[in-house]
């Protein structure tokens, strides 16, 4: 499964970057979301995966004794997911605003600030 997951991660990264390289604002955001998903999955994968044993202490136990999935990457990903949600919502609105104000979806037309003035 690790190989498959690595494949997924690779594809998500590649697709994310590819979308960020497009000229469309909407694609840019999609790219950001994809690559973010890739990063989360990567943490998950590299924290080593364990099947069918969530890190939850059973009802009548006090410690986890059997094999369990490493809870640390999970907690990290949770935090990362939530943060990317904040960023994504902001991104979506930013794009909407930018589109209304600049009146283009073409990122290539948004280069005034880099020109000499």
């Amino acid at each position, binding site marked *: 499964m690790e190989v498959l997951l690595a494949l997924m991660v690779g594809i998500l990264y590649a697709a994310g970057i590819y979308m960020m390289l497009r000229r469309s604002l909407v694609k840019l955001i999609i790219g950001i979301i994809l690559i973010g998903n890739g990063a989360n999955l990567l943490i998950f994968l590299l924290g080593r995966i364990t*099947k*069918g044993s969530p890190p939850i202490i059973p009802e009548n136990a006090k410690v986890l004794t059997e094999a369990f999935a490493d809870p640390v990457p999970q907690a990290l990903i949770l935090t990362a997911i939530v943060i990317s949600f904040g960023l994504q919502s902001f991104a979506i609105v930013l794009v909407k605003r930018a589109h209304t104000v600049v009146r283009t979806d073409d990122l290539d037309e948004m280069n005034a600030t880099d020109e000499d003035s």
Partner: protein
Amino acid sequence: MTLVDYLYYVIMPILVISAILIFWRVLKGPSIADKVIALDLLITTGIGTIGVYSMIYRHSTLLDTALILALIAFLSTVALSYYLEKRKRK
């Protein structure tokens, strides 16, 4: 054949095949409404899959996820159909 084997080798494949078929519809469409329906069904299937999975691994906690899925999937369908209509109005 134990129950777990049965779930593993018979039930899961059935659900998986269903998922493939549904996914095919997601890709094919043709209308956006079709995709939305398919997505909705895909999630419902996912709930079933999680149910079976929790039995295979004897971990009832996984059902919690199914619970959330059931609740929230609804909202995305509402939103998407809301969008479909609203877009038309323009």
